[in-house]
């Protein structure tokens, strides 16, 4: 049986890397005595994975983990609703399971549906933010250096689906942005932000910025939908 689990990663746990977080969930599944299915092969590893990595230092209220159980699994004992509470009883503070589902049909993994993600980005206040955001989003081309091939540039503008100011107070501007995410096209919000600052002629300081992933989405027709709607999850 396949399971899909949606969880949040906040507070101190934002400093736990993607791989360490996966190991942490693997241990949690073991503690719950869920009979995980292992891959065949010389060095078997558990069938447990996250839909999409999250950068170190970013928080999220929309992370997805999927796992597959073996034949010995007592399906009745792990009803999704109970699963959520059982996870939350043992996870360290900062991790919290928000929902859990079963995926009855065999099919593509949740990660294969990921096409976009929505972020909430807090940056320090500056006066011309509205113009800066409009100018940035209105451009046709935004040049960014390829992280792995220095000196090569790509246009990241097509990877920005939406960007707009959400809230403003005297210290902070909150932006929300929907960006390409996933294996075929992916834009890290921090990279988008660096370009935004560069285009507005301001220095970027990571220390003053907070980034939170608020949704992980996939295409259904021409509409972006949360993952659970795409992979046939059932409560």
């Amino acid at each position, binding site marked *: 049986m396949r399971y899909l689990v949606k969880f949040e990663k906040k*507070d*101190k*746990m934002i*400093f*736990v*890397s993607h*791989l*360490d977080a996966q*190991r*942490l969930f*693997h*241990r*949690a*599944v*073991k*503690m719950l005595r869920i009979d*995980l299915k*292992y891959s065949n092969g010389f060095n078997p590893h558990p069938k447990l994975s996250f839909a999409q990595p999250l950068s*170190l*230092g970013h928080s999220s209220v929309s992370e997805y983990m999927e796992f597959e159980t073996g034949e010995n699994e007592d399906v009745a004992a792990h009803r999704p609703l109970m699963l959520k509470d059982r996870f939350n009883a*043992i*996870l*360290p*503070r*900062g991790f919290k399971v928000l929902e859990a589902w079963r995926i009855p049909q065999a099919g593509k993994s949740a990660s294969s549906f990921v096409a976009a993600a929505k972020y909430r980005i807090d940056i320090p206040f500056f006066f011309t933010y509205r113009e800066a955001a409009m100018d940035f989003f209105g451009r046709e081309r935004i040049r960014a250096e390829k992280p792995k091939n220095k000196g090569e540039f790509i246009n990241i503008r097509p990877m920005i689906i939406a960007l707009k100011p959400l809230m403003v107070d005297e210290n902070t501007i909150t932006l929300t942005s929907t960006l390409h995410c996933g294996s075929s096209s992916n834009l890290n919000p921090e990279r988008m932000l660096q370009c935004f600052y560069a285009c507005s002629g301001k220095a970027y300081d*990571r*220390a*003053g910025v907070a980034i939170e992933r608020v949704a992980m989405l996939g295409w259904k027709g021409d509409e972006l939908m949360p993952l659970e709607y795409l992979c046939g999850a059932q409560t």
Partner: protein
Amino acid sequence: MAENPIPTKEECISLLKSNGTPEHVIRHCLAVSDAADRMGAALIDAGFALNLDLIVAAALLHDMARVEERHALIGAELLRKLGFESVADLVSRHMDHRFPDAIEELTEIDVVCLGDRMIRENVCVGFKARMEDVIARFAHDSNAVSRIKASMEKSAAFIGALEAKMGRSLEAVCGVSAPKLETLLLGVEKPGRYVGGEQNAVYKDVSEVSLRFGLTFPDIYEIGMSWTGMQILYRLLNDLPRVWCERVFAPAADMAAIMRKHGLPLFAIESGNPVRALDILGFTLQFELSFTNVLHMLAQAGLAARGADRAETDPLVMAGGPCAFNPEPLADVFDLVVVGDGEEILPELCALYIAVKESESRGGKREFLEKAARMDGVYVPSFYAPRYAESGAFLGLERLVAEAPARIKRRIVSDFCKAPIPENPVVPLIETVHNRAAVEIFRGCTRGCRFCQAGMIYRPVRERTQSLILQSVEAQLENTGYDEVSLLSLSTGDYSGIELLVMQLMEYCKRENVSLSIPSLRLDSFSFEILGEIQKYKKSGLTFAPEAGSGRLRNVINKTITEEEIMIAVAEAVKLGWNHIKFYFMIGLPTETKEDIDAIVAVAKKAMQTAKDVQKKGNRSFSLTISASNFVPKPHTPFQWVAQDGQESLFEKNMYLKENIGKIKGVNFQFHDTRSSHVEALLARGDRRTLAAIERAAELGCRFDSWREHFRYDLWMQAFAETGVSSDASAFAIEASLPWDHISCGVHRAYLLSEWERARCEYITRDCREGCTGCGLDCRKDDSAGEYFGRAGGPV
């Protein structure tokens, strides 16, 4: 009247008031003068020659006439009339002063202006924030903005150079509140090291505990969390309802630099509070090369290195662990040293601390130390003073107070089955060296290898029952979700009934999809049934430690294994399907000759040949790693008196082995840095005078000395030379007083001496499970104590 008087602070304030300077301007002036005062003092510490009184007065008076146009000149005029010529000069220049190009040209005016340019009204906000204000004010004038930006860049460079010289940011010096830890963590490697919050970490309400204990490991998180003692003591202390034990680790170099820059002190990872807020800081001394880290951590905490220089309100600083068996090199650092098993002493010490703290008399450190000194296993270094001969030879310690015992008797857990096993260990969020469940199956060792300190100081052997071990493994796995479990001890193969234990564990682990690791299997007690079982399931590396190449030298060190046995083991291992084996050897052992070194090469050759003979044709190729470490004589061992082999000699031997072993196909040779072994030897057997060299080394920048990339032999040697401490790891005379003579680990000096004699005669001393060898512990009173039977013959 002096020629060029400077008004005092009080005079300045009354001047401001009588001049009618508005209240808010006075508040601003006070804030600027406070910042300038702090910076001036810090700069003077960093070697600048400055007149601090002049700085403070000019800062207080700089805006005296702010209500006027051209206020700087008008203020200066007023001051000049009063005869304060030099203050007036600074005040007149403060509005359009430019910082010099080189920091060497720094004068009082620069400090005043730095202060002024960090204060917004009466709040110190830092240079950057203040300059942004200025830019905002001129935002309509783009020419002005670009001029300001250009001058700002120059100022920033000047400030950067000053900060580099002071080793701190101006913001930190001026007490601008440090940024939140979380913000700083975005800029460091592996921030998970510093946040705590792991599964099974303990959080308590500070108002409900009487004693806050900082269990302190003088290396980074990943190393400290891999040490089982951390889990044992953490659980033990937190099980005491009135104690909250938190963990403290050394910040890695990148984090330490950021903490220094922002003035953030060393903190405990659970609460994030500075360690100064704790009552006791308990260092564990697991290896000598962590000593400089102890000093750095105290400095990072804002505590003086030496106990005598710390205040009554500072935390009590104590130490334990194997290096506490010769605590002398750090004796002046610690208020108290615990000798023996921490499980046994710490709860009592905590109870005593709380009792003294809460007694009618509200007793202080001194009262606590006097009472603690009467407990077995407690050493209070300040109650003793060292005596030296004119020649410089160490003569012994003199007791200074009546409470101090002449010898400190080690404390041990006698019933090991009753000693707590942590069943819910803290599970690190990040990968550590050993991230797995672990059960110590017994403590102590009966083999009596003569180089081995652990084999002497942890005597006698104390085993846990099989059912306890199995129960603990199950509980730990249930509480952690780990997929690996390890059995710990000095010599796992020596556990009574090891085969049955391993069979049962294997069965359990297989069922639970958990892998089992059994380090410290010995070559001679090597059970092929065990290996066969493990091999069926999951294969890991295979390591043997013959320690010496020749049978003769193995007799000297009492490692009772024959070459034949080694080869049988290799053959068996290859038959069972291992295609890589690692051998550990030591070089520089007492009495070692060229033949003994050649014997290592011979063993490597023969092991390769043996493997080839056994291996079926067409199988994957077999490889062997020979790893050589350098012998370091340790206190409380039969070799405690001997000199360490010289640097050049050790290096030559390593090179010789590298060349000759390198010639054998399929064998890889690894060796240890001889220079760090030299420093280790100096620290292991040092006395109180060694501290000067350790302090100097730390000052010069030595830290994380056990990390190859950080170890700086040149600085260590410079430190020894500058402090006049001998850097000669030479022999101690048998009749000489040893710096650790006052620490008793239970093994008698007479036994160590006779073992040293037997070593030189190449006599083997039997494993004391086969019959008492009379080490002095008298752990088995029914045995015929004092009888010696060497396996390889020799007189009784």
